[in-house]
């Protein structure tokens, strides 16, 4: 039988290991940074005898980002692989609620994203915009100021203002496309340094 103290240290170790695993698509940002690691705990496993609970398994709860994100399966495999390497019996549980939001991304994570060349997501409550994708805008749209919160599904906002270019730091940027290399990013262009960059969309 395993002591409570020992169990606590295994859980703590598993949490650090899982939290340090990096995202398969954006290898500079960890599961902890992303906010998708929701819980790590020891759950009883196997038979309970007069000697007490004989076995435990470490249950690691993650929450998916986008519904269709193909990285989720890879992340699950990476976690199990990491636990295997450390001989920690583990399983991964997926929990949909509460729904993941980019607001859970840590400040450290945002900084790493910017250094990697991806503009970090604005906080949902702060995401406002007055413009549409310039290339596609009709005259009537360009002339019209729209200012609605991003979490309103009918908000017409697309290109957010003040997305800072991760290359040169200018806020003179424009959205090229709502969708970029992955579903979670939009494609932007800096109008000062003219470099294209990805913007992690608020979700």
């Amino acid at each position, binding site marked *: 039988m395993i002591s409570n103290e020992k169990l606590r240290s295994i859980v703590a170790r598993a949490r650090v290991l899982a939290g340090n695993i990096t995202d398969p698509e954006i290898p500079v940002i960890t599961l902890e940074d992303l906010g998708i690691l929701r819980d790590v705990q020891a759950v009883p496993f196997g038979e309970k005898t007069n000697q007490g609970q004989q076995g435990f398994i470490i249950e690691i709860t993650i929450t998916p980002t*986008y*519904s*269709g994100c193909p990285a989720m399966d890879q992340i699950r495999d990476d976690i199990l692989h990491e636990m295997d390497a450390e001989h920690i019996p583990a399983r991964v549980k997926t929990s949909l609620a509460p*729904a993941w939001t980019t607001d859970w991304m840590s400040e450290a994570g945002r900084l790493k994203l910017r250094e990697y060349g991806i503009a970090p997501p604005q906080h949902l409550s702060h995401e406002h915009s007055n413009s549409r994708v310039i290339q596609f805008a009709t005259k009537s749209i360009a002339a019209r100021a729209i200012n609605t919160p991003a979490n309103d*599904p009918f*908000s017409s906002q697309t290109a957010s203002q003040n997305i800072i270019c991760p290359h040169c730091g200018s806020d003179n940027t424009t959205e090229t496309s709502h*969708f970029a290399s992955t579903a979670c990013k939009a494609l932007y262009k800096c109008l000062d340094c003219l470099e294209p960059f990805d913007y992690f*969309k608020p979700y």
Partner: protein
Amino acid sequence: MIADYLLHLADNALVLGQRNAEWCGHGPVLEEDIAMANIGLDCIGQARMLYQYAAQLIGGEATEDSLAYFRSAPDFRNYTMLELPQQTAFAPSANVPRDYSITITRNFLFSTLMSLVWPALQHSKDAQVAAIAAKSSKEVRYHLRHSTDWMLRLGDGTALSHQKMQSALDYLMPYTQEFFTTAAFEADAVQNNVGVDVAALQDEWQSRVATVVTEATLQMSASTGHLTRGKEGLHSEHLSYLLAEMQSLAREHPGAVW
């Protein structure tokens, strides 16, 4: 019966996801190619969550894969509009190139609906349905934004793009009648406080659509004529072809994994 309701939501997402994914590698410009693949991926992701939950409720040997790949056309509960090919109405053959006006207009009409349905479903009595709806609500707003931009850009564009968008709207609007005609499994889901009463959302939907259509300098088309019943399993001839393509690998090699 809740499983039927889940299958309806899942089939809508899967069939539209499959249609949007047809643009992968064939988009009119690179950005749109990527956008369609991304939107399709979101839809398929939503379908997976719904199928997984439906499989759990159905029990037995049901899995997300058995529900997606081993049911036939009459078992599918999607709206007929979502299975239509990307070609314009009365295209003489399947060799006619896909038309983006159909893709955009369909995504716009359906995303406008789901931008009302998903947030409402977040209040479902069923916690898992509410959780799936919470995620889907976040995704559909990007889908709606994308299609709305193109409705405006193409509607208020050149004479040719305007005419194509008007034709697409005239073609697709009659299919939207199906959204607001309550099927038995929907009435059940509403009764159990699991589903939402879509018919009650019609006025809101109509006004949201009309606002964009007007701004796009298009004429609102009538949603009258033949009432399709895809969600009750009575599909157009197009669904079987779509399923044949989508399901062939899983049926040829059952249990195949990557």
